[in-house]
């Protein structure tokens, strides 16, 4: 039997993790399909797509910024890559797609640092610009590759999950062990002080935004690989999901701190909720309500956990 102390310790460690566990158990009890290998793989794949862009977004939020243009960047990269695959092959096309995402991210960074536009607005503007650009590039049409199955490797089997995990490890090391990572956290914590001690905040932010753009592109590529189509409508709304999973994971919006495992757990939680509700054939009207309730519930628990910690410290 778990003692009360142990439960609270577990809770404090990760409210999201606990919520995930509870939701997982509930769904397992409600439907036998949930815990099957095939389904779990689906859940993890779908979680990975959001997690990859969420990891980039974690860096952005840790540096004190937002990036609302990730959905559009994902679509743009998907279009670029899909149009290039027949011409230059799969791997070069994938690389080009990711690079184009990085480029768009860098432009975001430039707008924030050089033109001093707040990140929220800068990326909001880029959201419409990049999506418009994707639509103009594809002339509104779909680019599909029904014959080419090599491109599918990006989205099949464990690839998305492995990519997400690899990025998670990479970013953890980045934030914890490298100077760049420390600079990111310093910039997010207090940019004025960071500049005073010599951190080149402009370069740091360029790097961060470029990374966000690249991860968004990668997510977009996986999505387009799933459906073997590139079009300008892909991934609308990805930005809100990405920010939501980061916040769920415990990374504070004020910057200066980051929780990579939190982001992964947050992505998993959202994916599990979506998946479970689909398996149970819950009508779409009720899906929104349930998602909202579960999100708020998870965060309430998180807030309560934080309070308990505070109370214990002062008690």
């Amino acid at each position, binding site marked *: 039997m778990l003692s009360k102390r142990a439960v609270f310790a577990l809770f404090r460690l990760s409210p999201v993790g606990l919520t995930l566990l509870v939701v997982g158990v509930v769904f397992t009890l409600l439907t036998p399909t949930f815990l099957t290998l095939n389904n779990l793989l689906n859940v993890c794949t779908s979680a990975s797509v959001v997690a990859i862009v969420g990891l980039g977004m974690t860096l952005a939020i840790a540096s004190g910024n937002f990036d609302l243009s990730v959905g559009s960047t994902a679509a743009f990269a998907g279009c670029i890559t899909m149009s290039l695959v027949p011409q230059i092959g799969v791997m070069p096309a994938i690389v080009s797609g990711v690079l184009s995402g990085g480029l768009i991210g860098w432009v975001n960074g430039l707008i924030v640092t050089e033109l*001093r536009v707040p990140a929220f607005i800068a990326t909001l503007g880029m959201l*419409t610009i990049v999506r418009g650009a994707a639509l103009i590039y594809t002339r509104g049409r779909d680019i599909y590759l029904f014959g080419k199955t090599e491109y599918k490797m990006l989205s099949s089997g464990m690839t998305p999950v492995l990519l997400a995990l690899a990025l998670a490890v990479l970013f953890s090391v980045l934030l914890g062990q490298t100077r760049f990572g420390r600079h990111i956290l310093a910039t997010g914590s207090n940019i*004025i002080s960071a500049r005073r001690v010599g951190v080149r905040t402009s370069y740091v932010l360029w790097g961060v935004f470029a990374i966000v753009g690249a991860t968004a592109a990668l997510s977009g590529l996986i999505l387009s690989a799933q459906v073997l189509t590139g079009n300008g409508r892909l991934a609308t709304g990805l930005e*809100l999901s990405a920010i939501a999973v980061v*916040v769920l994971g415990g990374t504070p919006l004020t910057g200066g701190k980051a929780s990579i495992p939190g982001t992964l757990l947050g992505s998993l939680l959202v994916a599990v909720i979506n998946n479970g509700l689909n398996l149970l054939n819950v009508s779409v*009207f009720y899906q929104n309500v349930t998602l909202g309730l579960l999100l708020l519930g998870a*965060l309430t628990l998180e807030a309560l956990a934080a309070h308990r910690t505070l109370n214990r410290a002062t008690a």
Partner: protein
Amino acid sequence: MIEPALPVKSANPLRTVRPAKTDETVNPEVGQASRAIRNLDWDLLWEKFGIATVLAFVWILAALATPRFANLDNLASVLRQSAFVGVAAVGMTIAIIAGTFDLSVGSTQALSAWTAVAIAPYFGVLPAFIAAVAVGGTIGLLNGSLVVLVRIPAFIATLGTMFLISGLTFILTNGQTARFNGKDFVWWGNGLIGNIPVPFILFLFCAAIGAFILHRTSFGRYVFTIGSNAGAAYVAGVPVGRTILFVFVVVGLFTGLGAALLGSRLYSAGPGLEPGFELNVIATVVLGGTRLAGGRGSMFGTVAAAILFATLSNVLNLNHVDAFVQRVAVGLVLLLALSVEGVRQRLVERWNRRQRPSS
């Protein structure tokens, strides 16, 4: 009196730090505009009147380049269109000045508008509007409670509420849109007084109320102080929790009113969400000169920004700009309008550095 220090809450780490002026005593926001003009404080002048100036330029250029723009019909259409995002933006201005924001305004709008359209045929116009405002206020209360009492960050609290309310609206309406074209009801969204559209007049009225709240009440003073530095405000005795709760209620009330107007304009209201509405509202507020970091803002700017957005899409339509290019154009204008401020700051800094060679 506690001087606002470096703001802790920051969504924009590159916000310029303004040295506090020594003659700002209690209720520093009163008389800002006139002081700005008297002292030729360009910072403040741009913040208060910048967007309005841009708007004036754009209107003149549009009238010259697109003859049909200056038709009374068309101008009325532009002003009318600005009101629907505008009324919600009035509430959002107060929220952003207080250092927070509300992502659930889109779903609040859907539910409130539906309430108005559903009630109007049976109970009349006034009860319909009141009901819509009440629904908005209630959702605002929910948001405020989540943020203040449960201490959930505003971003995710309002995101969660958005899902919740949108789902509830679908369930309540069973996915069906309500319609009503009673003459008295639709006059509010479609009518004209003289040549000026009724919703625009209501919008100006709301903006005036909003400005009054901000500049002439203690609530408004608290809002500015909390936005500048919530920690310092708390220590100074400002009732932070209660104020933020009211802020969310205010956002909800204004959104509800705007929603009733929209339902009247469209003769209908359904459970579907307006795509990107909340981001448009926030963009309008920020374009108007209010800083996302909080502590400063301009209701006048919000009005000008709302009109500017409506003008932009109108001009693009009148000039038959390709639909996809329009998206790029809108984003570009948003970016460029805001970068004027940023570029100006940089040039000013460079100029200052040349004046003061030390350090």
